[in-house]
Structures are given as structure tokens and as C-alpha cells.
């Protein structure tokens, strides 16, 4: 039998869940906490091997 407390708990949980779904669909992906997802309006091309510059190196060796 459902009493007020049970109805309240179920409704609150449903509200949290529904709110969460709404948030994840409605917010831009840029608000994720990791860098695993990126949004851009530019076309992403596959990077190719670097072109070598003829230069005397000055790295630490």
C-alpha cells in the first residue's frame, strides 16, 4: 500500500531522474568534465606525417 512517504520518495527519485535526462540532452557537450568529447563547427581532417625542416638541431641531444 502506498503511503505519502513512499509516494514522495518515488516522485522525488523520478524527478531527479527526469531532470538528469533533460540536462544531459539539453546542455552542450562542452560542459562535460573530461576532454573526451569535443564539439566543433570545423571539419576535422586526419593529420599527416610532419614535413621535415632542414635545420641544425639545438635540442639537448
Amino acid at each position: 500500500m502506498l503511503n505519502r512517504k513512499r509516494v514522495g520518495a518515488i516522485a522525488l527519485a523520478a524527478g531527479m531522474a527526469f531532470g538528469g535526462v533533460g540536462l544531459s540532452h539539453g546542455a552542450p557537450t562542452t560542459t562535460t568534465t573530461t576532454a573526451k568529447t569535443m564539439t566543433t563547427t570545423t571539419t576535422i581532417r586526419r593529420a599527416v606525417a610532419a614535413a621535415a625542416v632542414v635545420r641544425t638541431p639545438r635540442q639537448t641531444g
Partner: protein
Amino acid sequence: MTSPIRRVARLAGLAVALVLVGMGVRILLPVQRAPTSPERSTSSERLSSPAYTVSTTTPDAARTLVGYSGYAATVKPASIEVRDAPAPGAPVRVVLPDHNENGAPQTFFIKDEQRDASGEVWYRVLLPIRPNGTTGWVRAADVEVSGLPYRLVVYLAQFRLDVFQGPHLLRSIELGVGTDQTPTPGGEYYIKELLRPPDPNTVYGHYVFGLSGFSNVLVNWPDGGVLGIHGTNDPAHAIARKVSHGCLRMRNEDIEYLAGLLPLGTPVEVET
């Protein structure tokens, strides 16, 4: 005495109110805050994650690209302002030209992205400046983004460099590393240039990759002590040993393989 109909109506009203409260609580929870100060990369933001995803939005549709080990940002204007936070008014951390001191296109490794209050997209990028691991924010509109197929992982204690394409190990390469007096510093770097020495018969061998990181010891070295990955003219004494000033040395056949494979921006993780 309350009638059964009224009790049901009250319960229904209570349920609706709590649903709305629940939605409000969830929506008001903070998701992420824009950083307000210069940042350093942390261990929780490893460059080596192969699981990056890019959602490309066009006026007509959105699609998702997967399979890259990360993304490089190449500077488009003659110079670029790198800021401390993703906002037009944030302090400028450094201004860099579109080509670096060796003539290579100025390239960064993208660590993160965020929109500012106006909706403009910014990228947090790893920078080729001291101290190692320094990052800053650039406007997405000021860079060209490209997907990076490969990543390198260096195990100093094992004198080994592994080349990965996504989760697949392509090649393991034997290395010479820094001495105890001039150690190769661990950390997260990226390839910022590829040089071909005019004389291939020097300690640098046939090619040199310049990294975004620096020696922690050789601070007065020309160009500031930039770390590199290069070949050697003395493989008998340069491999599987602590021999260098901080660079990573390998056989010429291995550096030639990498020179024909790796784009600028490729991430390099050095494990101590």
C-alpha cells in the same frame, strides 16, 4: 473526515510537486566551472587516452568521429594570444607566432574545450613553454584542428618507446635516455617540429623531433634546453643506456620510421 477522492487528489498533487522539485535540484547542480587561473596538466588528464570523440556540427546535421588518439591545433593567424581562461577578457598568458623558432607550423595538443558566455568555443592546449605541462586557452576560430592517429609512450626505466595507433601497438623501439646528471624528465609532451640535420653524421642522426618539454637541468642550453627524440651516429653506445643530456636517442632506422609516420601534435607520454 477526508474523502478517498480528496486523499488521492492530495497525493497526486504532492507527487507532481516533488517531481518538479527533483528536476529543479538536478538541473541546478553544477556541471563544470571555467578555470580562472593558469593551469597545469594533472595525472587525471592523461594524454594517452585513445577514447576521444569529436562531434562535428554542421548546419544540416551532427556526426561523430572516433578513433583518434587526440587532436592537434595549428595556429591560423600570424600570431595567437593564449589566455589564462576561456574568455576574451582573460589575461594573456603568452603570444606565439604562427611558426616556431625552427620554422615549423605552431602546433598545440588539445586537452579540453569549453564555451564562453557568448557561446564561442575555446580549446585548452598544452604549450611548448616552461614549465613543462603548462596549458592555456585559445579561440577555436584561431586554429585548425586535425585528428592524431598515433601516440607515443616512453618507459625510461626499460629504455623503450612504444608506438600506438589507437589501442594497437605498432612498434617497440629501444632507446638511450638521459644520464643521472641530466635526466629525461617524465611528463606529458607533444611533437612540435621535425628537423632534418644538414649533416646526418652527428649525435642527432638522420632526424630530430622537437618536443614541447624542456630539460629540468639544462636551462641555459640554446633554445632553452628543448627535449628531443632523434637518431644517432653511434648506435653501439647510444642505445639502452643512460647517455644523453635529456633527449631520447634511437637507431636511425627507427627515427626514419617515425619521421615518415608522425604528425605534429602527436602526444608523447614519458613514464619515469
